[in-house]
């Protein structure tokens, strides 16, 4: 299936886009998505366990995701 990933800041710069469609097997966990992204052009910026949010909430790597989820892979936050 295809996961539609939102990217921001340094990650968006590295991948050259704020949106990325990533092909992954079904079922798919967050960790599987990240592994797939690390193999794409620009993926070298991702650590093995980046911050990930699904539907606006922080999630750990073992959470399952589907094509209808809003998934964001998030660089280290720097607000304030």
């Amino acid at each position, binding site marked *: 299936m295809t996961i539609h990933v939102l990217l921001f800041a*340094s990650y968006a710069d590295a991948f050259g886009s704020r949106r990325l469609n990533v092909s992954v097997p079904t079922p798919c966990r967050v960790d599987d998505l990240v592994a797939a992204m690390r193999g794409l052009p620009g993926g070298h910026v991702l*650590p093995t366990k*980046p911050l990930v*949010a699904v539907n606006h909430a*922080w999630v750990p790597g073992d959470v399952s995701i589907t094509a209808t989820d809003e998934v964001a892979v998030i660089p280290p*936050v720097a*607000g*304030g």
Partner: protein
Amino acid sequence: MVVEPIDVASLIARVSDASVGAISTFLGTVRHVNDGRDVAGIEYHAYQPMAERELSLIAEETCTASPGLQLAIAHRVGTLGIGEVSVAIAASHARRAPALAATTYVIEALKRRVPIWKCEHYIDGSRAWVDPTSSAAPRMPV
């Protein structure tokens, strides 16, 4: 989340009433030097819907921990110059201890959990995304 300059006086007015005995405020401002580099300005970006949700959660946790607390938070996005206010927190309570504790809790939680990023513009024309973790591995901010 706002794009226009933060109205700090209005933020304070929102948490002010006759029951209040203490108002604590925190303002984050853009400073001219960071890590030895001369900063010309900062561009703030946010994953807006999640940032607003996470700020609401932080506010809810803070108020639940201190019954009677009133809280107002504003974070600005867009380009800010030196000295401008990027974030403002106003907390009020009948007593000073909960008000003081609240502003500290909110800013520390915001810095760990809210999806906002800043791109520093330097006076030499270069720019860079700020990474507060530097070489440390990120951990899930729950």
